[in-house]
Structures are given as C-alpha cells and as structure tokens.
C-alpha cells in the first residue's frame, strides 16, 4: 500500500506542478475541454491536487482499512468508474482511492471531457510504467451496451456519477453481483446566520467566501450553491447581502473569470434572469447575477449555473433545514457562515436521507481528502469486511 500511495502522490504533484510537462499540458489543454477559464483550471488543479500528499493520502487509506476492525478489510479487485463531465477534478477521489487500495481501475470518461483522467493516467505512467496496467481510461457514448456490459461483468464495484436518469439506467444494467456506488444529481445550498450579518465586515467576509463557492467550476458541480438563505434579524438584510455577494462575485471575476457561456446555457440564463427581475430583485454583475426572491409566488426556474444564484430571507436555521431537507439525497453540500457550532446544530435538523457535506463558506468546493461524499467515507465505501 505504501508504494502505491507514494506513487499516487508523486503523480498528483507532477500534474499540480505548472513547470512539469504534464502540468503545463494540463493548463494548456484543459480550458478548451472543460470550458473553464485558464485561471479557474489552474485554481482547480492546485486546490484538488495540492491536498493529495503522501502523508494525507496514506493517513486516509490507513484509517479506511481500520474502519471495520477487528474484521479484515476486503479491497476491491476491479473498480469501474463512470464519470460525469461537469467538474473535471471529480474523477480524482474515486480513482485515487481505488488505486491506493490496490484495485485495477477503468475510468469511463465523459465524452464531454476526458482530457483530465487521461492526464492523470499519463502522470501515473510517468512515475511507473506498470501503472498502465492498473489504470485505464476509456471514452465512448454512455449506454453503449456492447462496451459497458463486459466492463461491468469484469468489475466487482462500479462507482457512477451522473444524472438521476443515468443512475437509473445503470442500475438496470449493472449485474446484481456487482456493487454499485451511486453519486446522482444534486445541488448545494448555503446559510448565513444573523451573527454574520451584524456588521458590514462580517457580512463582507461571508459574501467573499460564498462568492468563491459559487464561482468555483462556474457553479456547474453538485457542490455548487444554487441558493443562499440569509437569516433575518441581522443589520444586513437579504437584499443588502445580495449586493455584497454580487460585488464579491465581480471581484472573483477579475482573478478567476468565468469560462465562455455555451449558447444553450445563455438562453437558460436569459430566461432565469428575466424571471428573477420580474418577480423579485436582480443584480447583474460581471459574469454573474444575484437575485433576491420575494415571498410567495410560483417556484422560480432552476438556476442555469454559471454564477447565477438566488438569495432568500429566512427566519431561522430550523426553517432553513426544513426547506433544504426536502431535497433529500439531492442535497450534496451546505455552506455555513456563522458560529463554530452551526454545523453541529444543523446536522440533526436535516431529515434522513439528506446527508450533505457541511462546511464553512469559502470551502464548499475544496473538500479535504477525508470528506464524506453522499454520506460515504472515502476508501471505506470501496471496502467490504470479513
């Protein structure tokens, strides 16, 4: 295990290093394949790969292997990972942990974006050519039964990322003897407690953190907040907070600009912003928009992502929990701005099966290596016990 962890950490460092050939290639080619700006790609590489040190990875893997003690851990032999294309670094966790546990891994990349997993494979091969037999990336249209069936049949575990429809379809095609770990569609949300709205400075700090959470990956991932609930009773109300959030998003645009807007998303954005303006309040900034939804009326259209976010007033944490708890398993992340005890207060208020990652604002899109995803612990989710 130690050798594998060391190699994986070396591969991560290689990709993270802008001075290496592969690191340079990643920064050059990923903006085109991901649709993110070059600055955002660099940020994503640094933040996701930077935490993949030998010590950190080794520590998480050791803890995973000990999680079922005194039972003996049984690692997977062959893991197939079905990747979505919206957040290019999302492949790291399932691939890295499966490889660290000694499994052979085949990653079926999204046809939208397969560059990063292939760069990861190249980085591993550069540390040790033997990795080419342990980790392979394939790309073909999802649902191609004649290609997927043998892959599933050879696996003992399939880890799948995608829409609910994709997951549903996979469920019907993954053999009963193969374990399926599902990561379906989801959204992030955030809560700003009144104590963070007691002063301009506190509100500005919360807004800065949330702006990064919204802007990261251009709000295209399941951890991205689509809406922010602002507790009433502070000196800064929802609209005033929305102004600050908009200003912070404008600031972020200067250092982490949004990628080009696909025309289909632009149409959805046009509709969303029109409804937001017609129904409530809207601030259109530089590559972003913040709306404030007034009470009552029909539910607004879903955010198109790409840094379009809604702010809502909220009486208290309990109301927030009851509201977002309705999302169930689709609630993937909650960002919190407030006292240190806020996460502990929120967790028991969320009705099962909701089990989002709860984190401070500013960190929603940079989960630590040992963070749970969909309620599953890294590495532990791949193991069985005897």
């Amino acid at each position: 295990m130690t050798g594998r962890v060391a190699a994986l950490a070396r591969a991560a460092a290689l990709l993270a290093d802008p001075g290496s050939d592969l690191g340079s290639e990643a920064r050059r080619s990923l903006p085109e394949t991901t649709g993110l700006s070059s600055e955002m790609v660099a940020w994503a590489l640094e933040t996701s790969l930077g935490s993949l040190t030998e010590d950190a990875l080794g520590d998480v893997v050791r803890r995973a292997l000990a999680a079922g003690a005194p039972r003996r851990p049984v690692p997977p032999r062959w893991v197939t990972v079905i990747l979505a294309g919206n957040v290019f670094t999302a492949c790291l966790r399932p691939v890295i942990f499966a490889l660290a546990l000694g499994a052979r891994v085949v990653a079926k990349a999204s046809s939208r974006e397969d560059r990063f997993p292939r760069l990861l494979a190249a980085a591993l091969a550069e540390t040790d050519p033997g990795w080419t037999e342990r980790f392979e990336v394939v790309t073909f249209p999802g649902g191609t039964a004649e290609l997927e069936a043998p892959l599933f049949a050879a696996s003992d575990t399939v880890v799948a990322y995608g829409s609910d429809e994709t997951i549903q379809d996979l469920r019907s095609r993954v053999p009963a003897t193969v374990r399926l770990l599902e990561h379906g569609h989801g959204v992030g949300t955030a809560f700003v407690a009144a104590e963070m709205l007691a002063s301009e400075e506190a509100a500005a700090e919360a807004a800065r953190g949330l702006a990064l959470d919204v802007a990261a990956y251009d709000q295209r991932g399941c951890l991205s907040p689509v809406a922010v609930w602002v507790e009433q009773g502070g000196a800064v109300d929802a609209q005033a907070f929305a102004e600050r959030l908009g200003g912070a998003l404008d600031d972020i645009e200067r250092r982490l600009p949004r990628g080009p807007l696909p025309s289909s998303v632009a149409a959805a954005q046009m509709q969303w912003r029109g409804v937001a303006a017609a129904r409530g309040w809207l601030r259109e900034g530089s590559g972003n928009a913040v709306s404030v939804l007034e009470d009552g009326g029909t539910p607004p259209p879903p955010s198109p992502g790409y840094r379009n976010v809604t702010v809502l007033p909220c009486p208290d944490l309990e109301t927030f929990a009851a509201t977002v708890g309705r999302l169930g398993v689709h609630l993937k992340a909650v960002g919190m701005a407030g006292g240190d005890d806020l996460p502990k207060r929120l967790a028991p208020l969320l009705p099962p099966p909701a089990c989002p990652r709860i984190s401070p604002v500013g960190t929603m899109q940079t989960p630590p290596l040992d963070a749970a995803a969909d309620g599953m612990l890294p590495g532990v989710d791949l193991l069985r016990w005897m």
Partner: protein
Amino acid sequence: MGTRERRHLVDRTLTLIDRAADTARDELLLDIARFQAETVEPYRRLLAARGIDPHAARHPDDLPALPTDVFRHARVAAHAPDQDLRVFRTSGTTSGRRGEHHLRDLAPYDRAARAAARASLFPDLVADRDRLRLVCLVPDPAEAPDSSLAYMVGRFRDWFGSPDSVVVWRDGALDRDRLERALDEAVAEAEPVALLGTSFAFVRAEDELVELGRRWTLPPGSRVMQTGGFKGRSREVTPGEMLALLAGRYGVPERRIVAEYGMTELSSQVYETTLTDPDGAFGDRRFVPPPWLRVTIVHPETLRPVPDGDEGLVRIDDPANVDTAWAVQTSDRAVRVGTDGFRLLGRAEGAVPRGCSLAVEEALWS
C-alpha cells in the same frame, strides 16, 4: 397612463396593421414600451433591474424584451384581472407550469392574425368574395378555450372558411373518418382545401393513414399550414421529413406547404413566404414577418442583434401586444436570411438536465 392613452396606442396599432407598412412602427413600439413600463409590473421591474429609462430610448433595440418564461411566473398585463377578456395558456408540457397571456381586447389580435394570414396563407382569396374549405387538425376553440392556436384557426374559419370547413381533431385525437370524408369530397368536387394543423397532429395522422394506405392528390390551389413542435406528443421528424410527409400524403406540392411561427405570448404570427415567393431569391424557405412586426436575431448572452448570418435567439417586437409585452424574448434559435427574413433552427436547450434539475429545485421551493 390612462385609458385614453391606451386607446390611442391601440388605434395606432390597428392603423399600422391595416396599412401593412412599417413606417412609424418603431416609434409606436417605443410608445407602447413606455406605456408598459408604467403599467406592466414585470416589465417595470426588468427595466429597473437593468437601470434603463425607457424615455431615453431612441430605438427599440435600446430596450429589453421580456423573456417568455416570465409569462409562467408572473401576470404580464397592463390591466386588472377583472378586465381579462381571454386568457391563452401555453401547453405546459416542457416544464409543468403553463404560461398565461391575459388579453383585455381581442381586436389587435384579430386584426394582426387576419392580415398576416391573408397576405401569406390566403393571398389568392379575394376579400369578401372567395372562401376555401378549411380542414383543421386543431381543436375547436370551444374544446380548447385557452389555446391561442385553436382560437386563431377558429377565426380563420370565420374569415376565410367556406361553410363546409371542418374540425378533424377532437378530444385530443384525429377524427379520421371526418378527415377522410372532407378530403374525399374535396377531390370529388375538385375544390381546393387548406389543411391547417400542428406538427404533432400531422404526424399522428400520418401514422394512422399510412396503415390504411390512404393518400390524396388534393386539387390545385390547395395548401397546408403546419405549425408548432412535437411537444412530446408524437415522434419527431425533421423539417425536410415533414415536408415530404405532407406532400406525399396529401398531394400538395412542397412549395404550397407553409409553416407558421407563433406563440401564446404573442398576438401576431409569422409565416414562411413559399406561397407568395415560391422561387425565392434565397433558394430555401424563410420566415418573413409582416410589416408591423419587428423580428431581431440576438446574441444569447448580450441580447444585442447579431451580424447577419450569425445564429442567435429570436426576439419579437409586437405592437399588437399593447396590453401585455411589446417585446418578447424567446429561446428559439434562428439565423437571418436576407434583409427581412429568418430561418428557425430549433430550441436552445438548457445545458442542465431539465427533468432532473427541475424536479430537484421545485422540491426546494414547494
């Protein structure tokens, strides 16, 4: 802005439509915009959000259009609900919530619909003399009172239809016996007909008729009007396949098949020019708006007009929408053809999986 001002705008609109000229159109559009800036709350809010003073505008392009989704989430009207004369609703199959167009006065709608149809669909009919048998694959307005298409086609029967015009779409399905009888009679009497229907109705009819092996060669002078999408109610066919299907089944030359482009949120419609310009200079089909209507192809993000030949989204400035939304922004993709025409390229689908994210986010707000 009071009743007198509104009445004056309506009169100017009706005059513009009657004159079939576009002079004074843009000035009228700006005046309607200013009226709606004060009386239509969603539009007032949109202008406020963008920091736009409608009185400073010198050209319709200086002012934003209201996105079609707003009709699903807010009341878009200058008048109070108790002044609604008719409410048209979208089909609502794509997102669950139906858009509503609240009309207090059908005169602008009727004037626009009649003028555009006469010019593009019935150019050979002499007014007040000639009538045509209309065979309608569209429900009767009594069966679908909130369908603007049903209303329009019902009015076509009043204005252009002979007494033997028929509705062959009832209770959501084709009345095949009636269709066959109407077309058989037309052939026997050598009398031309106008077949009017939605794309999905024509496809559903096709699927039934092909099994029976029924086919017609409709008399010269016959024509087909086809409109709308498939909305998940039938299999989808490409525009080329639709033309071949209609020409083959009904024996009407492709150049006498006219597509109509309209929507619940508008009072006016746009037609292809194939009946009036069959050997068009552009060698292909295109929509050309009537003179009182202004159609712009805009960039999806900036919402500014795109250069000719570039793809964009359709924006329609419709003075007949005096009481609702003078300018409507759609998510329909198009490209300009020539100086005054355009070709539709389909809807701009959002990048987010629609059903999935919609269900999730509606749970959030419910």
